[in-house]
């Protein structure tokens, strides 16, 4: 199996998962959704293991890293902005629900920042960053 065939199978599996989840939502059946997602993930895992073609290389990893960083930056900024709006709205209207939601979103932002810092430090150490000065 080559890379193109794998991409086709991946797209088909994603369609299968999406269809199963959609049907599960219509029939209000959580078990069907769990089963669909589990089968899809397991199937892709097995196909990935069986295929001998190179599916991931340094360019794909680099793209993935950049995309993840961009997603993180946009998502964190959006959540932080929304939290401020909710807190402001809550204080203006006097409804506790809005303010609570804003506070929860603020904590999610902080958690996201902390997680990023920790994973950055861990990966940076893995790739040789050190405070020790060398001669």
């Amino acid at each position, binding site marked *: 199996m080559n*890379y193109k065939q794998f991409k086709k199978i991946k797209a088909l599996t994603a369609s299968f998962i999406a269809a199963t989840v959609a049907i599960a939502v219509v029939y209000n059946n959580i078990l069907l959704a769990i089963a669909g997602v589990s089968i899809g993930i397991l199937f892709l895992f097995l196909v990935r293991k069986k295929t001998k073609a190179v599916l991931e290389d340094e360019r794909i990893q680099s793209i993935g890293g950049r995309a993840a960083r961009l997603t993180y930056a946009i998502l964190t900024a959006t959540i932080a902005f929304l939290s401020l709006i909710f807190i402001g709205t809550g204080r203006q209207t006097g409804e506790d629900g809005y303010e609570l939601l804003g506070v929860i979103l603020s904590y999610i932002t902080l958690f996201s920042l902390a997680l990023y810092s920790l994973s950055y430090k861990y990966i940076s150490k893995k790739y040789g960053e050190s405070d020790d000065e060398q001669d």
Partner: protein
Amino acid sequence: MENRTTNKIKVYRAMHNMTQEELAGKAGVTRQTIIAIEKNKYVPSLELAFRITRIFGETVENVFQYRK
């Protein structure tokens, strides 16, 4: 940042009568990566550059060039 690295992979591939798919298989990368390197859209790591040049039996300096 401007990409200052160019390469002659296409030339060496033609000299060795090798397709992009074959080179990708030997270098352990996808064909898309070889295409991106040939078009100077992606600069490979030093390790991949060594792997590619060894396939052609050349040195890195012969296959990759750096413009000042």
